[in-house]
């Protein structure tokens, strides 16, 4: 059954293109997608999922499971960094531990998208309000990460490096990708409410084109992730184990929370994926600014070089299998 799910996940265009990117690096092909083209696709995907999520949110309304689910997601993004921090402190200093912990509390939009595509190919429904959960899990994790530094950092941290709360909040709430996602969500909501024609006219761009653009972007992400692998080797076996086991742990916790919230199977998978995935957009930007003592290569190579491909290739079908076992009744 689960090998079946695994194959069904792997034999979809997005995942196949992801492999194509990874293999390109392994066989040292000179295939490259030069900057700023990845940025174009990254901006497009954020705009499109935000817009589509906003439309769905308007349709479903803000009642029902929306509020509990989003609240639970935010709580997960506050709790996960704490758990991760405790584990990471076994081997790493305060700065690196806090930075990596924050990354794992936050989310990866591309992993979320790939999980959505997986659900669609399985004909399992899910709700648009999960995008709101996605958008609201970025900032809290950053703030927890920085609180951990504030509490754990040695007292003789140079003065210059004292954190300014205003800058931190700014960085966590107004990071370009968070801002675009939330803004597009709001625009989708307003458009659905006031301008249904606009929804139809956006559809070819934000809807139809999406799957192909996702494939193109995953091709690039495959290249990028595979290029992070050497950095991963330097990070050592503790971090390598962390980057594979923690997503499993977080997804497991997420699925039980989803069961408690009585989410549908589709939403439960997305919830698990949000818990399991780690940020390589907003969090690195915030950490670099406020915790320069943390090694960027640590939090980038774990999140992007290992957790991201692990989730895309193995995680999604594994979590789906777990969801099927744990929440079969709500189908």
């Amino acid at each position, binding site marked *: 059954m689960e090998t079946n799910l695994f194959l069904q996940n792997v034999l979809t265009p997005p995942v196949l293109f992801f492999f194509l990117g990874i293999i390109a690096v392994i066989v040292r092909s000179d295939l490259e997608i*030069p*900057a*700023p083209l*990845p*940025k174009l696709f*990254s901006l497009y995907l954020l705009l499109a999922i935000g817009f589509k999520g906003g439309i769905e949110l308007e349709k479903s309304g803000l009642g029902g499971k929306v509020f509990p689910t989003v609240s639970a997601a935010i709580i997960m993004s506050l709790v996960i960094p704490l758990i991760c921090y405790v584990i990471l402190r076994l081997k790493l200093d305060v700065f690196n531990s806090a930075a990596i912990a924050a990354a794992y509390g936050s989310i990866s939009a591309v992993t979320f998208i790939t999980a959505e595509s997986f659900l669609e190919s399985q004909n399992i429904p899910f709700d648009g309000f999960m995008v709101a959960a996605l958008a609201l899990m970025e900032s809290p994790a950053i703030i927890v990460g920085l609180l951990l530094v504030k509490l754990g950092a040695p007292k003789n941290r140079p003065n*210059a*490096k004292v954190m300014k709360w205003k800058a931190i909040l700014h960085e966590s709430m107004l*990071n*370009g*990708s968070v801002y675009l996602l939330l803004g597009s969500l709001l625009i989708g909501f307003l458009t659905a409410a006031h301008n249904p024609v606009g929804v139809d006219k956006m559809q070819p761009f934000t809807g139809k084109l999406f799957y192909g653009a996702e494939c193109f972007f995953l091709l690039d992400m495959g*290249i*990028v992730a595979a*290029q992070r692998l050497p950095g991963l080797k330097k990070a050592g076996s503790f971090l390598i184990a962390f980057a594979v086991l923690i997503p499993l742990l977080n997804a497991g916790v997420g699925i039980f929370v989803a069961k408690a919230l009585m989410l549908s199977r589709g939403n439960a998978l997305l919830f698990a994926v949000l818990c399991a995935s780690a940020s*390589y*957009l*907003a*969090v*690195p*930007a*915030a950490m*670099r*600014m406020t915790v*320069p003592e943390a090694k*960027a*290569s640590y939090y*980038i190579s774990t999140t*992007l070089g290992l957790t991201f491909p692990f989730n895309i290739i193995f995680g999604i079908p594994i979590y789906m299998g777990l969801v099927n076992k744990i929440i079969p009744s709500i189908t």
Partner: protein
Amino acid sequence: MKRLDLVFSERELDAIIKALEIAEVPGYTVMKHATGRGPQTIVSEDMEFTGLGANAHVIVFCEEEVLEKIKTNVSPTLNYYGGVAYVSEAIEL
């Protein structure tokens, strides 16, 4: 005249430009999308799309007097976030 070359992360560009303006430089040139390695970090092209950003290379042609002021203003940022600054001789064509 002196020529000053600064290389640092794009994300500090605004702060460095502000520091240069306060030092009253006569002008400056910015080239973004630079990559590289320093004693502390490696910056590769794909950093640009993650939140980390690539490097910026800034060139300033100015009189020797201005250099001191620039140094005072940009050092905190370069020390905190990394980056290098080197001075050469230059004369107007």
